[in-house]
């Protein structure tokens, strides 16, 4: 049985982040918005208990938070010019919220290029998703104090350097959308395949990334890459429950039980992919989503259109050549043209990828398929030495042992 939330707790979950977004837009200050919204909730917890919750909790909280903001602004000369505007908002009946613009402006501020990557991720999770500092710290496996300092420093930079919360102009908006997508994808990857640590999937971050990517699509409904990103995340995450075994060891895509793939997520992902392909502009997220879509539609490894996947990797390489992409393309080609071809392509990358664990485990897997255990075993050794992911290390060790036992 789920415990029933009090009206204040319920409102906190649904209204906190949108209220901060609206107040940031109107006051220009993240710090002030956060404080005013907190005070409004404190007042709600007292007043709603005695008077009962209002008919429209969101509107009540917004009005109260605006009043609190004005009180605070009166005490600070920096806000002098903004007070009349906010006071006028208070007097008028709350207009139908243009919440989308508030949220887009808040996201744009959180991923301002003058903020470092870690700060962008922490701010987005805190203020756009409404996670607590402790929740973010737990997700990123850092002490709460560290995350608190990171957020405090980031907020200090925003306030002191004068980072504004506005929707940027055309060209800057395109750059900012790229940055937002980068943050969302980083959050997803952090959750989906944590680079180190005991558990391979920290699901809550995946859920936040899905929520963020769908929010982004609703904010910029004509952006092909936003839809491509949502499709990529949904299609990848559809395999969440199939990609590890009961002991938490990873299972390769080709060995996964496809009946465990989440059909609802696949359908949502394919819908997003279709929408993306109807829009102008081709970019890496849409291309990667297309690859994930080909996997999702295939009933088995043998029925997968590996030649098309290899071709899409070619398109990705044309956008941005990288040895890791070439490695992935080689793995796809190995399925359509055989492991000898795949291995030969991988061996061309040795100079660039010799310190990359996945390069050696991919080679090991080719060598094992070619029945060359004497070469596959040292390749696994090298991959294990280069990995810091416990589950992957255990998995590769198990593969190695089975090769040794013939």
């Amino acid at each position, binding site marked *: 049985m789920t415990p029933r939330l009090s009206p204040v707790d319920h409102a906190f979950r649904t209204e906190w982040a949108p209220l901060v977004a609206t107040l940031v837009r109107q006051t220009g200050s993240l710090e002030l918005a956060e404080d005013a919204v907190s005070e409004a909730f404190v007042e709600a917890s007292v007043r709603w208990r005695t008077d009962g919750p209002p008919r429209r909790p969101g509107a009540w909280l917004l009005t109260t938070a605006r009043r609190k903001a004005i009180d605070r602004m009166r005490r600070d000369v920096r806000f002098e010019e903004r007070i009349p505007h906010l006071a006028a908002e208070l007097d008028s009946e709350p207009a139908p919220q243009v919440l989308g613009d508030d949220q887009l402006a808040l996201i744009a501020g959180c991923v301002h290029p003058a903020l470092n990557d870690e700060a962008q991720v922490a701010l987005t999770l805190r203020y756009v998703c409404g996670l607590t500092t402790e929740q973010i710290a737990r997700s990123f496996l850092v002490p709460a104090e560290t995350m608190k300092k990171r957020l405090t*420093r980031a907020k200090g930079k925003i306030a*002191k350097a004068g*980072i*504004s919360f506005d929707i*940027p102009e055309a060209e800057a908006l395109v750059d900012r959308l790229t940055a937002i997508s980068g943050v969302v994808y980083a959050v997803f990857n952090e959750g989906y395949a944590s680079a180190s640590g005991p558990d391979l999937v920290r699901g809550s971050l995946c859920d936040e990334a899905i929520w963020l990517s769908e929010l982004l699509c609703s904010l910029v409904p004509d952006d092909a890459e936003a839809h491509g990103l949502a499709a990529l995340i949904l299609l990848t995450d559809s395999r969440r429950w199939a990609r590890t075994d009961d002991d938490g060891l990873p299972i390769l895509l080709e060995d996964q039980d496809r009946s465990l793939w989440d059909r609802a997520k696949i359908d949502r992902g394919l819908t997003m992919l279709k929408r993306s392909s109807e829009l102008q502009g081709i970019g890496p997220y849409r291309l990667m989503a297309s690859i994930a879509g080909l996997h999702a539609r295939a009933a088995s490894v043998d029925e997968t259109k590996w030649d098309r996947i290899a071709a899409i990797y070619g398109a990705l390489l044309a956008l941005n050549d990288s040895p890791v992409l070439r490695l992935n393309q080689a793995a796809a080609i190995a399925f359509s043209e055989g492991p000898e071809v795949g291995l030969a392509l991988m061996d061309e990358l040795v100079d660039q990828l010799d310190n990359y664990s996945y390069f050696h485990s991919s080679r090991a897997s080719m060598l094992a398929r070619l029945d060359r255990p004497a070469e596959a075993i040292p390749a696994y050794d090298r991959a294990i030495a280069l990995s810091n992911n416990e589950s992957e290390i255990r998995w590769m060790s198990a593969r190695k042992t089975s090769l040794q036992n013939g």
Partner: protein
Amino acid sequence: MKYALLLYSDPSAAPEFGTPEMDAEMQEWFQFTADLAASGNHLGGEALTPTETATCVQIRDGKTVTADGPFAETKETLGGFYLLEADNLDGAIAWAEKIPLAPYGTVEIRPVMEFEQ
């Protein structure tokens, strides 16, 4: 002749804000500024907020590259400075992009420190 005096120090070597040592040093700063002004030779000057608030702007291949943090490339040296007014950081970045050395150098933006009255 006009000279710019650029003040470098290790922030950890300075006394902390709010301590009597800092108050004493502030008095020395105010006195020095007053003396300079009284001499008729004072043209301008400001204290800057700490490097945590710094933003660097470069133009590379025609695109603006903005980064968090102070400038750290040792081969480039400070060659001048502008003091300007802008609504917010984006306004300052827009000016920084137009500075002729942006395509090959770096413009570090540091907000001017505001002292409470």
